[in-house]
């Protein structure tokens, strides 16, 4: 560690955002990155802890955070990159969209402000790309083993790259036109521009990963075919089954799952579909987003960019703790505090403990939504809190479009899964053992398909570990 008192001498500084007015005009990213000298100072705040909680507990990937902090502080960017790439296949993604549990568990989060780990991560990988240091790293020896990866989201990409580097022949199947899965179709450009994904995919092409897009497994290719032609199959299809809100009026026009909306918007921006094909447009409308999570937030940001006249985001859970301090009240765990995303800053009315009771429409189209306020009470049976309506708290709003961002249940239970006769767990995820193996021999699973919807960084981590497990098994074949 270069500077033992860095954290005492310097304050935490992060990149600023473009002003709201400017950023609403386009779908481009809007964070201004710090220059290298500033980053060096930020890197010096790292204390090189005896137990680095960021690495040990925070980051699911176990990123070697103290090591690259030190390298950045000492100006050894190349070495920072080597350490970074050794644990993370997609740092340019996590550097942009990860909620950074590492920062929440940074030791400085106990009573100070955490090191700006996320922006350092992004800076390292971007500098690496700029310098041309990131090149294909194809295996030196081919093992002759073949692996099919189903789904090209973060888990699939990470696993595919790792498996390829182990020397296996890897084919990634993707049902959409382009690879990337939720990264490409679920996350708006203003958080993750799509060239970022393409750049990484190019490296993977060069390393010899084969991509088959527009292939719907189970329909276009049978499970039997895959099992016959591959030594291993890895399912990384995400947790695409959204949680529904089955109340009166759900079938009305204008009530959509959030993902329908986001996917269409993303395709529109990338030109995959033409403007004429757009079905859901928020322009000039009153928008209701149900669900207070990140997906909801993405809907808010997209709707505002489309020119919505008013955006509401309601959440049935109570309002979390408002927390203005720079430190983490729940260190080293993730704090449950009120978070205001950049999208919220762009204009949105938020409310909590609000239950949507029914959608009211005319001519099959939504016009109004009725709500009731709830309070959360402990149940006597099992102690799990339950919402109880507050009498007389009913209210309603004029609404033109509703997006259900109430979470995801599990992997889509499609024909492919049926054909493979995979065992599922109670929640409906694919059941796996400690070797990432499913109930069907040779078939593995990783990412949200196995864990249920979670963070991108967890998916990458899961994908890497699955690749390791598959490699072990293939070696023993």
């Amino acid at each position: 560690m270069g500077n033992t008192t860095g954290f005492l001498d310097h304050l935490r500084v992060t990149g600023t955002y473009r002003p709201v007015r400017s950023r609403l005009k386009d779908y481009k990213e809007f964070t201004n990155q710090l220059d290298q000298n500033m980053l060096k100072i930020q890197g010096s705040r790292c204390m090189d802890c005896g137990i680095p909680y960021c690495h040990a507990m925070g980051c699911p990937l176990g990123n070697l955070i103290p090591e690259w902090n030190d390298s950045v502080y000492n100006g050894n960017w190349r070495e920072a990159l080597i350490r970074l790439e050794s644990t993370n296949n997609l740092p340019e993604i996590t550097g942009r969209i990860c909620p950074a549990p590492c920062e929440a568990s940074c030791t400085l989060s106990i009573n100070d402000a955490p090191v700006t780990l996320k922006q350092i991560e992004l800076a390292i990988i971007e500098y690496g790309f700029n310098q041309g240091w990131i090149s294909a790293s194809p295996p030196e020896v081919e093992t002759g083993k073949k692996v099919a990866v189903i789904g090209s989201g973060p888990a699939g990409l990470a696993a595919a790259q790792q498996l390829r580097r182990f020397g296996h022949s890897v084919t990634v199947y993707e049902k959409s036109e382009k690879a990337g899965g939720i990264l490409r179709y679920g996350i708006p450009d203003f958080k993750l521009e799509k060239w970022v994904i393409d750049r990484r995919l190019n490296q993977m092409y060069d390393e010899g990963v084969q991509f088959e897009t527009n292939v719907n497994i189970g329909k276009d290719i049978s499970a039997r075919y895959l099992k016959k032609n591959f030594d291993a199959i890895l399912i990384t299809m995400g947790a695409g089954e959204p949680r529904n809100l089955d109340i009166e009026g759900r079938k009305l026009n204008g009530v959509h799952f959030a993902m329908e909306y986001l996917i269409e918007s993303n395709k529109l921006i990338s030109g995959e579909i033409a403007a004429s094909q757009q079905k859901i447009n928020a322009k000039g409308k009153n928008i209701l987003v149900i669900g207070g999570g990140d997906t909801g937030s993405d809907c808010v940001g997209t709707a505002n960019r489309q020119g919505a006249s008013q955006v509401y985001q309601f959440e049935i859970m109570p309002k979390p703790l408002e927390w203005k301090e720079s430190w983490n009240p729940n260190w080293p765990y993730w704090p449950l505090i009120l978070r205001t995303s950049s999208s919220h800053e762009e204009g949105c009315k938020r409310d909590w403990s609000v239950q949507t009771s029914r959608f009211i429409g005319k001519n099959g189209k939504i016009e109004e939504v009725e709500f009731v306020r709830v309070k959360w009470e402990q149940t006597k049976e099992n102690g799990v809190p339950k919402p109880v309506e507050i009498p007389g708290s009913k209210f309603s709003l004029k609404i033109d479009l509703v997006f259900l961002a109430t979470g995801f249940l599990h992997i889509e239970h499609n024909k492919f899964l049926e054909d493979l006769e995979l065992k599922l767990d109670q929640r409906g995820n694919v059941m796996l053992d400690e070797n990432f193996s499913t109930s069907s021999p040779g078939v593995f699973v990783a990412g949200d398909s196995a864990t249920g919807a979670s963070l991108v960084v967890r998916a990458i981590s899961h994908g890497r570990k699955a690749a390791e497990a598959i490699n072990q098994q293939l070696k023993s074949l």
Partner: protein
Amino acid sequence: MQSISDQLNCRKRLRETGLYDPAFEHDSCGVGFVVNVNGEHSHQIVTDGITVLKNLAHRGAIGGDSRTGDGAGILVSIPHKFFQKECNKNSIALPQEGSYGVLMLFLSREENRQTQAKKLINSVILSEGGKILGYRDVPVFPECLGDMARQSMPYICQAIISFGSTSGNKLEHKLYIVRKCIERQARIHQFTIDDLYIPSCSSKTVVYKGMFVAPQLEEFYPDLNDPDFESCFSLVHQRYSTNTFPSWPLAQPFRYMAHNGEINTLRGNINKMTAREKNIHSKLFGDDTEKLLPVVEKNLSDSGIFDNVFELLCMGGRSAEHSMMMMVPETFGQRYHISEDKRSFFEFHAAIMEPWDGPAAIAFTDGIRIGATLDRNGLRPARYVITQNGKVVLASETGVLDIAPEDIQSKGRLAPGKMLIIDTEKKRVLFDNEIKASVSRQKPYRRWLEKNRIELKGLFGIPGPVDINDSNHHLRLLNVFGYTLEEISVVIKSMAENAQEPVLSMGNDAALAVLSDRPQLLYNYFKQLFAQVTNPPIDPYRENLVMSLMSFIGREKNLLDETPEHCHQIKLTHPVLSNDDIIKLRNIDTEGYRCCTLGLLFDISVGEKGLETALIELCKTAENKINEGYSLLILSDRGVDKTKAPIPALLATSTINHYLTKAKIRHLTGLIIETGEVRDVHHFATLIGYGASAVNPYMAFEILFDLKKKCKLDMRIETAVEHYITAVKKGLLKVMSKMGISTIRSYRGAQIFEAVGLNEQFINKYFPGTSSRIGGIGIQEIAHEVIERHSDAFAKNENELKVIDSGGNFHFRRNSEKHLYTAEAIALIHRAVREKNYSLYKEYAQHINNTSKNLCTLRGLFKFRKRESIPLEEIEPAESIVKRFVSSAMSFGSISKEAHETIAIAMNRLGAMSNSGEGGEDEERYNPLSNGDLKKSMIKQVASGRFGVTCNYLVNSAELQIKMAQGAKPGEGGQLAGLKVDETIARVRLSTPGVTLISPPPHHDIYSIEDLAQLIFDLKNANRDARVSVKLVAEAGVGTIAAGVAKGKADMVLISGHDGGTGNSPISSIKYAGIPWEIGLAETQQTLVLNNLRDRIRIQTDGQMRTGRDIVIASLLGAEEFGFGTASLVSLGCVMMRKCHLNTCPVGVATQDKKLRRKFCGKPEHLINFMMFVAQDVREIMAQLGFRNMDEMTGRVDILDVNSAIDHWKTKGLDFSRILTKPAVSPDTPLRCTGKQEHDFSMSIDNELIRKLIVSMDNKEKTTISMPIRNCNRTVGTALSSEISRRYGSNSLPHDSIRCKFKGSAGQSFGAFLAKGITFELEGDANDYLGKGLSGGKIIVFPDKKSHFRSHENIITGNVNLFGATGGSVFINGMAGERFAVRNSGATAVVEGVGDHGCEYMTGGVVVVLGRTGVNFAAGMSGGFVFVFDKDQLFDTKCNLEMVDIEPVTEKKDITLLKSLIKQHIKYTKSSHALYLLENWQETLPLFVKIMPIEYRSALARMKQFESKETEEITITEEVFR
């Protein structure tokens, strides 16, 4: 009660199945002699010898049966008159004086065996041409003995032998051969040392010895009381051993000498002797030479073996003094002012024999001459008196024989490395200069050296750059040799940058090598041994002038001869070779010198077997090469490729070293290791410790070059390499010094290590003589680890190679080394204690105890046997269990005030105890707070630095803990940098802000086990209500040391694990010294139980204690009390930053930074919750195990079992049976402490003093009393002082309130911790430790008014006076011994001369020396100042100038002070010398010099500056000094 023989058998069994090993035993003692210079025989001399012995009795110890001594004996010249009488009685025709030999015999008491033995003896003597004139049963009186001694008593008889008319040296030679032959035959015929032992066999001397305490000697041997039993000298010895096996043969004196000391390098010395046997030839013995082999007898103690070799050298033709100078050479480094001839003598002999290193006072005799010598460090006292009428008395203490003051011609002490001989033939006393001048000039050693020694030109010049030709190969090698990023950046780089080993903080909680999932280097299985209690470690920084890394390598010649060719060897100034050096050695081209390289590689295609085969081949090749005449072998692992993996260098070194030793050709070659494996200090130390002559770490150099290339090193590469080498050199000195070893010559091959996790077969084959007690892996697993690293390295592609493994050994990394504390565990326990949530604690405990995932410790492999459970309500309550818990010692200074006080409050609320650590304690904390809380630490530590250890500190405690070692850095001292010493710390430690504080490695009042007993006695006097405990660190043999501690009357012994915490320690010490407490605790319990010592001493243990399970295991293994260090801190918010040494703790726990301290958020409740949780956890396990209280559970090792369910490839070979052995003692033998130590204050005169003075003390009246005193009256004044402190605190009586006048020889610790208000006046002389810890009192010493000698040229007080004094004054009219005013932090002293190392580590106070000083004056002195009367103006050559400047005394203030002190001195002591100085002030003043510590001067200046500023309301804050 079990019978004694049962006990003995049980011991023998335990030796086979338990952890006890007699090889661990230590002894040291009182030694002395009385001689008539004129060689006149008299019985008085014998009686005098016995008197001396009796007066040294307190230096011995008594065993478990309270009557068996550890051994005593007497060596006298043959009492011819007595034998004449006795032989007449037995009708033996005794030849004339000098023509017969007396063979003293210890034989088996079994008659059959006796007859066989005698038969054997007869036949040997006959075949050697001698004749037995008769046997004489030596009359004995066994009734006086203790049970154990009597049970093991041999049958004792004497045989009178003659070889016709042969006499003189010829007869001695014959007798020598006879004895050696008997010994050899005896071993062949299965006689053990207990069945047949020859205490002496000589025509000049005879030895009477046995398992006695001093007074039993003359009672047991009525011979000694016979008036005809006359001798011209008597040499006596009283043994204090940690000994557990009663052994008559091991009592001293041996045949030629008596030894107070320890040979630390014994293993290496024995091996080297064995190797040399092959070319031992003696002209004197001719063909008989072979009969003298083996030189070393089996099963002897270190002293006994020393005696064997000393005998060989003397018999081989060298004089006794010459032999002694070879074996115990004094230091001859350039920093000593000695004659060039003498220097050459020692250097020449360095090429022949290595020193037998260790603290030693040796009294020796060849029958005609009797003498004594001291080791180079002078770590054992030896005082002598020469009388007017031709008697010389030398002993460990002065005052052991009453001599009229007017009869004294001179008084002195042996200085370090010096010798004294009395020649009874020449009737003269020979002093050191005369002896050594004649010996060192008997041959032209200087010329011989100049002509023959080889100093390769350019060797050790500035090393040139190293090139890496193939960077991929370099990276691959990094993998093959297991380098980690951490090692490169934390270890190697930092060694290059700072020229010293890096430091780190907190304990080692990583997995033991044998439990680690990651391939380990072989070095990691070896743990450094260290000195504790039985001998002192050395300070390798401040006292490095006594240490040396110089050695000769090459071909040794016949030991019994000396020729110029003997030194025709290569001289290495240190053992670290640069790449250039290796090249030069390879191309060496000097007559008689040839060098060849052997490959340290094996073929991996053969698999794990390949390693074993390669080693066998390697040994044979080495043997052949030596036989072909190669005198240098380079073992090199250069040339690793895809098929060839490196043989672990340590394995190869030890294997070859032992192979060559066994073949007796090891001494014919130098063994140079060229390896990529070594990088840290421990690696070098192990290689050298197992026999390497020199080491070249080529990969470390390559790494430095690579770092330089990548611009990560801001220095020239040459400097980097040089620094790196310097760091290794310093580190080696440190590793040697912690065992008390001074020279690399004797360290080499001394095997000062123990193994943890290597199996017996492997150890016996490759590392014979190394202790390894829990089994473990073998050659196959080691090969596996090498191959795994190797194949991993060659499987990686270019990109993967670049990602060097993180390491995770010091700082946690996922997928790297396992650690006991994980992020999750810390998070859980923080929440648990803050929310007072027991179920979270349980989660935490489960996390820590989850051994399937996180196997780090030995106890992780244990499980409890099933027993009937009992309801929880019936178990001892948690409130009671928690009282057995303590917070481990952490000094205020290493942790913040807030943390320190919170711990104290919490522990006091629990009714448990907190430990002050070694930094003193603010007296403010002694008073309760308004809410009833108490910030006082109930345990007060007494550590080597003695910071703030005043009488009042000692009084305010419930326990006094003597810290002998610390788990994180046993055998080492510490240093608190000046910038961290703020005003508060300075106040508490009684020093000056901004001045560096050094804790020396040894306690300067504990150089031996009897010294420890003395300190325990001191502390008991200082506070009779407090219990005294001794803190040890687990290592092989800690049990026997604990036995010594128990005999020394400590109330509790603390066995710390190797993994204990620290605020600042060198990395290699944290990682590689000491062993887990599980082993140490078990060994301690077994040894104490067996020796009937367990019932009088409690055992505490600590080291990474985390959960109730840990406590229960410790309890079952025998501990009664348990310490929590790190865990206490963690419950108060510590997050294991490991930044204590940097002062940047971000949670305010281990920092003095005010900003950071504000962030401390720990509350007493948190710690209380933690302790209560653990206690509750303990209860739950107790319920499950069916124990109602802790007492029932203590020592029930039978409840522990090995958890065979844990499946780990390396743990399969572990064998815990030795740990889990319960000593087979009768069921009523206590397994825990049930009684108390009986302290013997019978010789103490303080009770009388208190009785006489109590009224005036209470009334604050002035009083004077007078009393006689003698050396058995020890620690006088301490109990008296404690009474004063109890009454008045540190704000004591006015000066001179109580005056006590003594006359005689004062015992040790005269006036220790003397409180203000008391004045001691001593007419006579004093022993060691006068004024120890002086706390404001006044001590005046002057010679008896009737004596004639010149005071300033004679020693009148012993060594280590004023050690740790904090205030008061001392006036000594005479010279003091070594280490005067060491660690003085406030006392004023006037003395007329001092020995070596005066005023070392002094931090305050004023000392005036009116005469000569020894060398190394003011080493490590950071505060206070000294005036020295430098008559010869040579003082600057004796002063250690590292931290001080020498100035003339010109300032008026100084002159006034000096003058007034001298005036006081005259007033108190009537010193004529002082009077002379003052009367000639004009002439004498200019010769005075003032010694001023550099840091102190600037600190004073700074304070002065701030004093003036303070009026402007700027306070002194610690930031001032940052």
